[in-house]
């Protein structure tokens, strides 16, 4: 049976990793800090996928971000999706050649769906994740692009209808209202998904503890749950959360983490 997934999202800003709360960023540390304090390559054995997003406002150092993607993929044997500011096939190519398996697009959906078609022709639709940032205003689900700064004129359902007609492999549905709050997912967003929508759904924004991940996995409409909450889940947080989910018979993939030690010992 196809398993559901627990995804960790790392937010990257100009050489550092950051926490985001309602899209306001707070610096946490650089990649050495991440590795030293959180032993990231170990943590990656407790998640199903990693998403890395360059959320740098203004001019981005694209090569430096690629370098970070390369470093993250070095000892993580899971699928990695990378994105943030992709505007061309060339940029998608650079990320895919830096160890990313998929690219995440967001603003591109409004600015240039043609580029999405180009990426799909070259790499297939399974390689494209559409990220959609949603804010609830006057009981309406509004869609925001450009790091949550530009409001689109279409509501969420119409936006998702449009995405359903693009060559997209997965949807990353993110609540800006819940982002970084640790209060739990915004399940109402799922009600806006059109009936004919046929793309796997990753629910994001708001998870702060194990119970949030499990309630996300409980929802039939959700294929994967994501969290970007560095402080709540890194350390042994993800390890404990996954073990608890597996113990409670959640439909997650299993592998023997202890095998890593056998491979490591042989290298010494």
């Amino acid at each position, binding site marked *: 049976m196809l*398993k559901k997934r627990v995804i960790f999202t790392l937010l990257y800003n100009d050489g550092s990793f950051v926490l985001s709360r309602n899209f306001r960023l707070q610096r946490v540390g650089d990649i050495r800090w991440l590795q030293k304090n959180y032993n990231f390559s170990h943590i990656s054995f407790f998640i199903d996928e990693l998403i890395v997003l360059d959320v740098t406002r203004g001019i981005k150092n694209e090569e430096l971000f690629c370098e970070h993607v390369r470093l993250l993929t070095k000892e993580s*044997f899971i699928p990695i999706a990378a994105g943030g500011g992709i505007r061309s096939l060339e940029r998608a190519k650079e990320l895919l050649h830096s160890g990313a398996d998929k690219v995440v697009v967001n603003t591109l959906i409004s600015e240039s769906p043609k580029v999405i078609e180009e990426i799909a022709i*070259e790499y297939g639709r399974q390689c494209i994740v559409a990220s959609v940032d949603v804010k609830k205003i006057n009981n309406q689900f509004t869609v925001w692009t450009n790091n949550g700064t530009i409001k689109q004129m279409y509501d969420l359902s119409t936006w998702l209808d449009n995405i359903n007609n693009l060559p997209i492999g997965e949807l990353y549905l993110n609540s800006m209202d819940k982002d970084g709050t640790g209060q739990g997912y915004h399940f109402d967003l799922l009600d806006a998904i059109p009936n004919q929508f046929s793309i796997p759904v990753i629910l994001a924004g708001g998870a702060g503890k194990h119970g949030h991940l499990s309630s996300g996995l409980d929802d039939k409409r959700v*294929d994967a749950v994501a969290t970007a909450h560095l402080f709540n889940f890194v350390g042994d947080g993800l390890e404990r959360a996954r073990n608890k989910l597996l113990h409670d018979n959640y439909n997650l*993939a299993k592998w023997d983490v202890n095998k890593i030690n056998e*491979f490591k010992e042989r290298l010494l």
Partner: protein
Amino acid sequence: MIARKVSIVDYGMGNIWSIVSALKYLGVVDVRLISNPDDIMQSDFLILPGVGSFRKGMESLINSGIDKAIIDFSTKKKGNILGICLGMHLMGSYGAEDGGTKGLGLLPNKVELFTPENLNGNKLPHVGFNSTYISEDSGIFNNLDSESDFYYTHSYRMLADDIQGRYAICKYGIEFLAAFEMDNICGTQFHPEKSQTNGLILLNNFVNKVI
């Protein structure tokens, strides 16, 4: 340390970096990215990776003359080869994508799209870890449970008709070929380099195959 020469065919289709990382992690010292026919014959072990379109992949192999070298490596030199995802598809006889393209023909199996009928309500592409049922605990499947989880991402499937040797099956609405080992010729629909320790075990079995 594993002192074998493992070459990865770099023909512009997909994520090679992750396979390199996985092999290095397993202690393979000599990992090469190769893109010309002569280098292929010099390898001990060959990995044919790839994501994307069957037609594009095949065109790319033909244009660089790698197609013939891979066939010679596999059938004349009897070198150990592992096709991953699109790489496995290209080893088949035919891919139905874009009106149909002839494959390398290392095995007779064909590659077809999951149709809405056989998807049985499942979404496309097939993405994520899925239960994989393994025919025997030996060869490239050594040390793996008879039901093991591997990571998949694809919309086309290789049919498992008349498969010889060791194999694994996965089901997504309908059954398809998840992996096979016919003597020196191996393939995986899933991505071992993205399948945590299960994938590392399989790759480790492959690079330790008897030459």
